[in-house]
C-alpha cells in the first residue's frame, strides 16, 4: 500500500511538472482536453502537447485529482506548507480538471491580492478551463472578480478621478476613436467578448456565458453607446445562425432595450438628431455616431443628415420585427424566435405607453425618405449571398416610387401606435397559420396569438 502511494506521489509530481513545462513551452495553448486512454501506454508522460492543444490521458485523472485535492485542502487547513510556485502549479492542474472547486480559485485570488500572480494569467487559465467546461459557474465568477481587480488597477495607474473609477470606466481624451475606453479596457472588453463567444459556441443557450457578457457591458462599457451598437450589429448575424439559442436572443433584447433607453435620454430628440448621444461620449463627432447607429440598426449608414427621432425609433422596431419575421418563416418551429417576437412587441407596446406624446411621424411631416437596407449595413452584408439559407437582399432604395411593402416602414408603419401594432401582429399570425403544416410552428403561433390577447389587456 505504502509502495502504491509512493508511486502515485511520484506520478502526480511528474504530471504537474509536465503541465507546467507545457505552458512554458507553448504559452499560446488554446484548448485543453482529456484523451480517452484507460491504461498507461509505455513509460511516457500522460501529457500530450500538440501545437496549441494540451491533452491529458484519462487513466491518470483518477490518481491526479484526489491527490492534489487533498494536498490543497491540507494547505488550507494549515496542515502542510506549499510555496507560491507549488500553489500555482497545483491550482492550475486542479482547476483545469475540476473548475468548480471554488476554494482553489479563492487561493488564487489571495495570491493575486498579494501581487504574486498576474491577473492576465488568471484570465487565461479561466479561458482554458472554459474550453472544456464552458458553463462552469465558478470559472465565470472568478473571472468577474479578476476583471474588477484589473479595472481598479488600471484606473489607479491612469490616475483617473475617483468618480470615474467607481464606474470602472476611464474616459481618456487621448484615446480618440477607440470607443472612449483606455487601451487596457478596450483590450479587456474585446477579450471578454471573444471568450463569451467561444463558450456560447461550445454550449448552446449557455446561461453563464451570456449573463457574463451582459455583466461585462454593464461594467466596462457602461453608457458607451458605440460598444452597444457594435454588439447589436454583430449579434444580428450570430442569432441568424443560432436560431434556437434563447440566451443569444435575450442578449439582443438586452441591447435593444439599452439602446432604446439611450435614444430616449437625448433631449429634443425629434428635432435634433445630432444631440442623440450626448451622454458618455465626447470624442466621436455626433454625425459619426449617427452613422454607426444607423448601420447597427440596419439603416443605410450614409443617411447621416436625416433626423433620428420618434420616427426612427418606430423604424428600428419595424426593422427588428421584419428580421424576426424572416427568421420565423425561414426556420419554422423555433420557440426562441417566437419569444424574441414577444419581447420586441412588448418593448414597443411599453414604449408607446410610456411616451404617448412622442412624435413618431417626423419623417412623414418633413417628407423625408430614409434609405433602408434590409440586411445589416456592415457585419451582415459582408457575407455574400445568404447565411444559412437566409436571404440577404441588396440594399433597397426606396426613394423612388414607394413600394407598398416598404412604405409602411417609411411612414412609421404598423408600429405607429400600440393597438395598430397588435392588429398587425394578429394578421401576421393569421396569414402564417393559413399556410402552415408544421405542427410546432402552429403550436408556437397559437400560443403567441394568445399572448397578444393578453398584452392588449395590459
Amino acid at each position, binding site marked *: 500500500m505504502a509502495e502504491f502511494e509512493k508511486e502515485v506521489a511520484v506520478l502526480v509530481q511528474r504530471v504537474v511538472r509536465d503541465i507546467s513545462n507545457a505552458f512554458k513551452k507553448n504559452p499560446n495553448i488554446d484548448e485543453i482536453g482529456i484523451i480517452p486512454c484507460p491504461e498507461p501506454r509505455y513509460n511516457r508522460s500522460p501529457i500530450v502537447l500538440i501545437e496549441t492543444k494540451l491533452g491529458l490521458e484519462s487513466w491518470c*485523472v*483518477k490518481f491526479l*485529482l*484526489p491527490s492534489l*485535492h487533498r494536498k490543497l*485542502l*491540507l494547505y*488550507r*487547513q494549515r496542515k502542510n506548507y506549499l510555496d507560491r510556485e507549488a500553489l500555482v502549479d497545483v491550482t492550475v492542474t486542479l482547476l483545469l480538471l*475540476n473548475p*468548480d*472547486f*471554488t*476554494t482553489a480559485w*479563492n487561493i488564487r*485570488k489571495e495570491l493575486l491580492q498579494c501581487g504574486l500572480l498576474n491577473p492576465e494569467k488568471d484570465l487565461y487559465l479561466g479561458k482554458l478551463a472554459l474550453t472544456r467546461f464552458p*458553463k462552469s459557474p*465558478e470559472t465565470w*465568477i472568478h473571472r*468577474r*472578480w479578476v476583471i*474588477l481587480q484589473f479595472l481598479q488597477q488600471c484606473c489607479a495607474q491612469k490616475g483617473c478621478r475617483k468618480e470615474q473609477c467607481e464606474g470602472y470606466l476611464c474616459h481618456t481624451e487621448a484615446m480618440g476613436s477607440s470607443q472612449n475606453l483606455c487601451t487596457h479596457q478596450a483590450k479587456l472588453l474585446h477579450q471578454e467578448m471573444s471568450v463569451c463567444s467561444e463558450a456560447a459556441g461550445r*454550449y*448552446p*443557450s449557455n*446561461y453563464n456565458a*451570456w*449573463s457574463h457578457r*451582459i*455583466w461585462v457591458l*454593464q461594467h466596462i462599457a457602461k453608457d458607451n453607446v458605440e460598444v452597444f451598437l457594435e454588439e447589436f450589429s454583430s449579434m444580428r448575424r450570430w442569432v441568424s445562425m443560432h436560431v*434556437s*439559442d*434563447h*440566451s443569444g436572443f*435575450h*442578449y439582443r433584447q*438586452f441591447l435593444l432595450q439599452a439602446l432604446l433607453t439611450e435614444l430616449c435620454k437625448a433631449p429634443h430628440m425629434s428635432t435634433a438628431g445630432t444631440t442623440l448621444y450626448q451622454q458618455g461620449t465626447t470624442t466621436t463627432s455626433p454625425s459619426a455616431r449617427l452613422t454607426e447607429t444607423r448601420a447597427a440598426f440596419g439603416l443605410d449608414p450614409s443617411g447621416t443628415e436625416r433626423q433620428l427621432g420618434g420616427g426612427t425609433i418606430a423604424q428600428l422596431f419595424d426593422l427588428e420585427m421584419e428580421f424576426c419575421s424572416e427568421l420565423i418563416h425561414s*426556420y*419554422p*418551429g*423555433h*420557440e*426562441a424566435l417566437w*419569444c424574441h417576437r*414577444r*419581447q420586441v412587441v*412588448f*418593448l414597443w407596446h*411599453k414604449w408607446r405607453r410610456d411616451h404617448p406624446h412622442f412624435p413618431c411621424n417626423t419623417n412623414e411631416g418633413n417628407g423625408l425618405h430614409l434609405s433602408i437596407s434590409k440586411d445589416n449595413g456592415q457585419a451582415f452584408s459582408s457575407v455574400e449571398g445568404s447565411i444559412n439559407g437566409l436571404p440577404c437582399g441588396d440594399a433597397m432604395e426606396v426613394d423612388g416610387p414607394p413600394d407598398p411593402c416598404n412604405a409602411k416602414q417609411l411612414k412609421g408603419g404598423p408600429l405607429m401606435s400600440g393597438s395598430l401594432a397588435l392588429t398587425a401582429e394578429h394578421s401576421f399570425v393569421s396569414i402564417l397559420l393559413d399556410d402552415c403544416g*408544421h405542427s*410546432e410552428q402552429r403550436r408556437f403561433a397559437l*400560443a403567441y396569438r394568445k*399572448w397578444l390577447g*393578453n398584452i392588449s389587456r395590459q
Partner: protein
Amino acid sequence: QGTQIKDVVIKDDAPNALILDKHADYIAAYGSKKDDYEYTVSEYLRMSGIYWGLTVMDLMSQLPRMNCEEITEFIKSCQHECGGISASIGHDPHLLYTLSAVQILSLYDNVQALDVDKVVEYIKALQQEDGSFAGDKWGEIDTRFSFCAVATLALLGKLDAIDVDKAVEFVLSCMNFDGGFGCRPGSESHAGQIYCCTGFLSLTGQLHRLNADLLGWWLCERQLPSGGLNGRPEKLPDVCYSWWVLASLKIIGRIHWIDKAKLRAFILACQDEETGGFADRPGDMVSPCGTAVRPSRVSRCCDLQLQRNVNQSPANSGRRHNFKQPPQLSRKFEQSVASSLTDVDQLPSALLRVYVQAILAFM
C-alpha cells in the same frame, strides 16, 4: 426545412410506478460509498448534497437510517471564524452551504449546534448597498444568494437582521418582461432563478409584487409534449426542473396550469428500476443538433415522487417546525413556501429532486 423538437420520447416499457424502497436504499448506500475520485470532484458542494439526501429520506420517513450525530459534528466543523459555513472541511465558507447547513440542522431541530449569532452576522455583512447579497467575501452578486440569505435567516427567526426592503427592491430589479427572473438585473429568465426569487418574495411577504399570471404563463410553457419540464425555452426537459418550476407555480398559486398526469408519467419514466435513483430524462433522445448532452455538475439528479400521505416540508426552502420568527412571517412561510408540498389535495404527489452526484458520503 422543419425542425426536430427538443424533447424526448417515453418508451412503452418505461417504469410507471414509484419504486420508493429502491430509492431509499440507493440514497442510504450512497452514504457508505467513498470512491476517492467521485468523492473528490463533488466535495465542493457536499453540504448541499447531504441536505438533499436527508430531505428525501425524511420525506420517506427514513431519516433515522442516517447518522445524525456524525452529520451534526461535520457541520459544526464546517463553521468558520467569520460565522459562514463551507461545503466541507477545509473549503471556504459560502452562503449556499450556510443555508444547506441550517436546513439540515432544522431537520434535526438542532440549529443551536451552530453559533447562530455568528451565522446571522455573516449574512448581514454580505448585504450590499443596493440590497443585493454577495455569496461570500469575494463579492459575486446573484439573486440565488438573496434567497439563501433570507431563507437562512427565516429558519433562524432573524429576518429582521437585514434591510429587507432593499433586498426586495434588488430582487424585483431582476424581473424581466416575461414575468421571470434572472441572476442579476438584465439577465435572462431561468427556472432555477425564478424559484429563488419567488421563494424570496414569499418569505418576505411580497408575492403581490410579481405578475403571477405572466410568470405562471412562462412557467407552464416549460412543459413539453413528453410531459417533462425544461428550465428555459428550447432546452431539453430535465427532471430537476420538476422541482424548480413546480415549486414556483405552487408558490404563486398556478400549479393547476400544468398537466400533472403527463409530468407524473415523465418523472416515473426517469427511474432506474435496477439501482434506484432517477436520470435526467427518460428514453431515447431526439438530438436536434447532434450535440451530446453533457451532464452538468448537478444535472445527474434524481427525483423521488412521494406518496399522497406525505405531510412534510419542501425540499429546498424550509421546514415545518421550529420557526422562531414572528408568527406572521411564520404563517406566511408555512403557507406560501412550505405548503408547496404539503397541500396534498392539490398536488397528487410531492416532488423532490436529489442530486445523486452530490450525495456521495454522509461522512
